[in-house]
């Protein structure tokens, strides 16, 4: 069936569906080395064989044939803003990328459809030896480095959508921070879906050597379309000895997107991994960032906020695996369900027999705005030795009348009062997000309550 997709991406539009021929063509177009083509083909086989996950959201309405896996916009990679085509520029303008870049960001890798159209690294980073490239270029320019790490943390056999990702991945960022280098400003990548029926399968690979430090920001935004959109990206992070990694995400896909993402980090001796995630968009999400604490003294922190509104089922959570002694972790997950939305916290905390003297806390809090919405909490805790200290707390509740009453007695309208309380509930995590995301979250809350406070 032919659809009007707009002029700029008709040229190389492929037929829907996944088969061997298509995978080979993607690989050929990208001029990939043979190991990558083989990885894609192996992944395809696994994808065709594996069944859907046996938990989480209902995927029965997800029609694979509707997803065009690979679309190439009519734009070449550009190093300067002037060379970016107008339509794309316009969309980016609305997201405020150039603005943000000029101010604080050290580089932008923005993805339009499946190819990276804009890449820029400040010369300062180059001097430090930091590599920040789109994934395709990295495969060509640093083949040994990429081959050593690419899909080693999340192999294609992990689950069906990891296999799908392995077969059709396209775009994404590659960051390598050498030993002892602290990247002074956050690196940022925007991903977008701007064609109906397109799947997004970007791959982010981040390697931090000993003592390195990095803050990486990922954001998603997509306009609303009628066809089902599938997003199945992957993030693999290697945190070396004593290194510190902070990964901030805001997920704001349009309300018809299936967001089935895999994010995993492995942390070395005395390393630190911090995940800050905000989920507000998509129709259905399954996302459980994972931290594997592999060596002594490694640390992980997960801060997670989920806002499920009308027609949304957001199944989010965290996975922390303690494999070594003296490792520690902290999970703070908060969710809001309103207007018939469903937020589900699903967590796993595992303390293996060798992981002595582990300290870990998991806290979940959920706010229910009405009796049409739904909230679920399911933290699984497995402790396999006797010298670890593990605690968990969860609560589901509403906004208390006395709080609203108090604020109203001080002159606020009911909507303003509710909005203020909700923002207060989210504040500890929102504060961890970059400013423009924090503003976006607050706007959303205000819209929900028709409030203008803030």
């Amino acid at each position, binding site marked *: 069936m032919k659809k009007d997709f707009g002029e700029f991406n008709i040229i190389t539009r492929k037929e829907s569906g996944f088969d061997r021929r298509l995978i080979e063509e993607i690989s050929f177009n990208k001029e990939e080395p043979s190991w990558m083509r083989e990885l894609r083909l192996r992944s395809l086989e696994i994808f065709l064989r594996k069944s859907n996950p046996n938990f989480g959201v209902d995927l029965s309405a997800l029609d694979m044939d509707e997803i065009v896996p690979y679309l190439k916009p009519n734009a070449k990679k550009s190093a300067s803003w002037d060379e970016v085509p107008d339509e794309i520029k316009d969309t980016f303008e609305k997201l405020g990328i150039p603005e943000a870049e000029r101010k604080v960001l050290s580089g932008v890798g923005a993805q339009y459809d499946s190819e990276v159209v804009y890449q820029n690294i400040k010369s300062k980073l180059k001097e430090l030896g930091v590599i920040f490239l789109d994934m395709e270029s990295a495969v060509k320019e640093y083949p040994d480095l990429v081959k050593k790490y690419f899909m080693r943390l999340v192999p294609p056999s992990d689950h069906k959508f990891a296999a799908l990702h392995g077969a059709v991945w396209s775009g994404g960022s590659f960051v390598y921070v050498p030993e002892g280098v602290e990247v002074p400003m956050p690196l940022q990548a925007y991903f977008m879906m701007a064609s109906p029926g397109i799947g997004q399968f970007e791959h982010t690979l981040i390697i931090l050597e000993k003592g390195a430090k990095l803050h990486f920001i990922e954001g998603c935004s997509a306009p609303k379309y009628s066809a089902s959109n599938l997003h199945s990206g992957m993030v693999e992070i290697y945190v070396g000895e004593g290194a510190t990694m902070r990964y901030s995400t805001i997920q704001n896909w349009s309300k018809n997107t299936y967001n089935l993402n895999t994010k995993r980090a492995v942390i070395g001796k005395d390393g630190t991994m911090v995940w800050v995630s905000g989920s507000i968009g998509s129709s259905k999400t399954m996302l459980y960032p994972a931290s594997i604490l592999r060596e002594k003294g490694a640390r992980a922190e997960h801060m997670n906020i989920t806002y499920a509104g009308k027609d949304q089922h957001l199944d989010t959570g965290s996975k922390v695996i303690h494999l070594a002694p003296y490792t520690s972790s902290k999970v703070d997950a908060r969710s809001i369900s309103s207007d018939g939305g469903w937020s589900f916290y699903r967590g796993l905390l595992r303390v293996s027999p060798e992981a002595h003297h582990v300290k870990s806390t998991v806290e979940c809090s959920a706010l229910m705005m009405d009796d049409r919405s739904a909230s679920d909490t399911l933290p699984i805790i497995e402790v396999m030795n*006797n010298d670890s200290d593990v605690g*968990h707390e*969860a609560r589901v509740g509403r906004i208390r009348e006395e709080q609203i009453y108090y604020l109203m007695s001080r002159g606020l309208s009911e909507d303003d009062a509710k909005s203020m309380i909700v923002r207060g509930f989210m504040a500890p995590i929102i504060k961890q997000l970059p400013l423009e995301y924090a503003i976006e979250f607050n706007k959303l809350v205000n819209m929900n309550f028709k409030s203008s406070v803030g």
Partner: protein
Amino acid sequence: MEMTMVKPETRVFNIHKDYGLNEAKKLGLFEWRKPFVKRYVEEGFPRWKRLKLSQIPLNDLKKYTGKYLDGNAKILESFSEAIQKGHVGKFPKMGYDGAHKKFTLMSYAFFNAGFFIESSGESKIYAHYTLDSNPVIIENSLVIVKSGSELTVVREIDGTGKLRVSTTNFVVEEGAKLNFFNVLIAPKTPISVDSNVYVVGNNAQVETYDVILGGDKTAVNHEIRLEGVNAKASLFSFYFTTGQERADLECKLIHKAPKTTGYLEGNGVVKENSYVVFRGNIWIPSDAYGVESREKSHSVNLSPTARVDAIPSLSVRNNMVTAEHGASMGSLDEKKLYYMMSRGMDKHTAVRLILEGVFEPLMNAIPMKSVKRSVKNGLFSRI
């Protein structure tokens, strides 16, 4: 928009010589058992991810020998008698699968023990089964706590046998109160599966104490359905496992009616290579406003090779409720130990005292001296 959740399926296995119509015939009351046998043979045994069942020791089925019922109630009889007298007419249409429907159906189809109780006023019942003389006990029981009455049931299972499967249906009518003590001291018994469902009416109350001291593989399921306004239920689960023992304990609180109150608590000790899973599920549907539901679990791990899993879940569909859960897991409190030893106590005594503390609330609640003694002995043999 209708939203659905995908749930993992339980994998099943079949065994070579499963029970069937012949066994049911031998036990008598064949007509009553027959429909359940037909459904039973269709089902496979659950593998259970955490309990890892791979074989079921199905020995010869015989009627239970010996007396196991004592106490006073308006009606107190064996389940077989109750069927013969027509006391269990409506039973069992509760749609309850228990730990797994294979085992629930096994109880209905092949029971060789079990009781029927109908209470009025204040009654106390003691059911005492021993696996030593009856290595296979399959129990099917029904308890009706009549409106306005209070019933205390103490069920004790001891000894070492091959298999113990039980399903108990409780109906607690308006304003009635049930106190239930479920004591399982069955070390070295390969498999014990215990399923209990409670239907709790307006202003009715349930208080259950669950005690698990042994059994190689033990699965316990309690499903409390708070169906009447102001119904209240609390469930306290106590366990102490050792050796290679595994136990999977599941407690469900279903708040069907508004203004119902629920409380779940799991306390226990794991030792050597044993492994305990404690699941507490709270379900609050959208029309159940004013519900208060809480869950707490605490475990003490005495060995570097023992394991405890906590899987608490809250499913909430109404915002006018309070729902909470908390869990903690750790080793023996070093500070407590240090304090006691600095007061001249040897380590063994100090450890024993701390562990006794974990079970203290249970000991205070058990209403019968003999049962108190067996629980105490069961605990001491494990410390």
